[in-house]
């Protein structure tokens, strides 16, 4: 991203306070980047979003957008939501119930003349694929259609930042997929920072360029989706990213750990000392099934065990396996499961890629 000065077209957020909601975050994003704020309820993610919109004022904070200061509590700068030019899609969309779809969008452009804003509103509705529904009231629209109106309204002010507060929570699963795809293509077309608040990790992974994990008002980790999934800093982040294959281990030397009764080769153990207890993560990416009951245990990092349980979910099956006290979960396609004759109590051998095994400090 080319920018004329350090802050141009980017968004930087700093919020600090102890009460009523503890916050201590410092986040910045580039133009054109979609940043997902993820965390359990009460982690402060919505408060951060509302602070950017000017609907919440943290005790200490600085919010800068494209070189412009929207909030700076030290210098008594606090722009009103009206002055900030943000597009905000509320969790339940907060459409104006007494106005038609097109009037909902047009109302966000009161600074232009009536004819222009009506035309612009219709263009925006067409952009979110709502042609023909412009004159319906929100009560006459489906959940997905309402979300599109809310999105069109958010874009109407030509915002400098687009904020999305759990935009998919009020629509059913069937509607969610196409809406996500549309948001993804909108994201490619928009050259402004987009902040998405969600508690759904799949949503964040599917849409975000970077994910910021919040907990109790603190940034736990911020990075690309794969960074967080494969190299989480803490067990908390790993669990939030949907990782189940977590065990405890002991560092033996620079490239080996002992996990249960197994000695495993790992990538260079950096910053850990021999004898140290660590938490180890086996991302599914590093696990490969060799054979149902392979006897050649000579392969490096191979584990022999048995299948404890198989959970079916559509095209996939999740295997719960036990290797001498080390439990691992692995998702395989239903086809692979059938070809390899994977069944409960059957023997199974897997190998673990040393490059993929991730060590974390014990908390």
């Amino acid at each position, binding site marked *: 991203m080319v920018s004329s000065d350090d802050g141009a077209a980017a968004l930087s957020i700093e919020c600090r306070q102890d009460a009523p909601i503890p916050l201590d975050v410092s986040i910045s994003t580039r133009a054109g980047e979609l940043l997902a704020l993820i965390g359990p309820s009460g982690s402060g993610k919505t408060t951060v979003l509302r602070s950017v*919109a*000017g*609907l919440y004022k943290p005790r200490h904070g600085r919010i800068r957008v494209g070189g412009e200061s929207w909030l700076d509590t030290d210098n008594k700068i606090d722009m*009103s*939501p*009206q002055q*900030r*030019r*943000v*597009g*905000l899609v*509320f*969790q*339940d969309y*907060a*459409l*104006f*119930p*007494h*106005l038609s779809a097109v009037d909902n969008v047009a*109302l*966000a*452009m*009161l*600074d232009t003349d009536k004819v222009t804003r009506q035309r612009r509103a219709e263009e925006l509705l067409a952009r979110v694929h709502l042609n023909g529904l412009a004159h319906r*009231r*929100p*009560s006459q629209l489906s959940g997905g259609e309402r979300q599109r109106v809310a999105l069109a*309204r958010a874009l*109407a*002010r030509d915002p400098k930042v687009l904020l999305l507060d759990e935009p998919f929570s009020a629509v059913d699963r069937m509607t969610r997929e196409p809406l996500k795809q549309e948001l993804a293509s909108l994201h490619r077309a928009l050259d402004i920072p987009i902040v998405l608040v969600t508690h759904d990790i799949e949503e964040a992974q599917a849409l975000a360029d970077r994910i910021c994990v919040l907990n109790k008002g603190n940034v736990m980790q911020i990075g690309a989706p794969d960074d967080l999934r494969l190299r989480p800093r803490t067990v908390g982040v790993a669990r939030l990213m949907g990782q189940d294959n977590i065990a405890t281990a002991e560092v033996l030397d620079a490239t080996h750990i002992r996990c249960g009764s197994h000695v495993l080769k790992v990538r260079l153990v950096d910053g850990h000392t021999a004898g140290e207890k660590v938490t180890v993560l086996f991302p599914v990416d590093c696990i490969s099934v060799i054979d149902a009951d392979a006897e050649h245990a000579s392969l490096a990092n191979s584990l022999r065990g048995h299948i404890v349980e198989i959970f079916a979910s559509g095209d996939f099956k999740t295997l719960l396996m036990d290797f001498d006290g080390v439990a691992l979960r692995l998702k395989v396609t239903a086809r692979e499961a059938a070809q390899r004759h994977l069944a409960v109590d059957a023997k199974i051998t897997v190998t673990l890629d040393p490059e993929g095994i991730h060590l974390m400090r014990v908390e």
Partner: protein
Amino acid sequence: MDWQAFSLTLQLAAWTVLFLLPCAMLIARALAWRRVPMKSGIEALIMLPLVLPPTVLGFYLLVAFSPQSAIGGTIKSIFGSAPVFSFTGILIASLIVNLPFAVQPIQRAFESIPRNVREAAFVSGLSPWQTMRRIELPLAWPGIVSAIALTFAHTLGEFGVILLIGGSIPGETRVLSIAIYDRVQAFDIAGAGVMSAALLGFSLLSIAIVHTLARRRGTGAHGFQ
């Protein structure tokens, strides 16, 4: 039909609505959205006229407004007369008695507007005044019309308070309900019947308006944009 009483009644109802509505809207909006200290205490006080016997309220107002009292005396020294046995007196009484009928429906209407709808308006660039005009008033409109209808209808039938503070002075304080009472006292049953029928008609009309609006509120439809 006592046309003088009829006209006086309509004037009283109209002035009551005119004065009370802006006050009621300010009070209702504050109670609905702002963090008001002693909110439930204030709400109880506004509700008091609903349960207080009108004659009791009328008695206290009579005492308070009499030229011998502090309030009545002050008013007399400024305006030349104390507000007892006058149109001003029954108007003030009517404003107090109608406070719950005006505040309640408007407060409920404002409360039913989600906070984030107003926030969406702010984020969309609407000033507080534009939000008031284009979002809050249209959405609260059914409640406001209910308040107007209820206040109007209730004023038409007010009796106890008016009798105590205003008496029955033709052209000044003798409203329809007082006139009906006077006619019955004078055994003019036909005259009382005509005026009673007029009041009944007005009351039915107001209830019809309130009901229609209450039903339309559910669908979010109304004739205001």
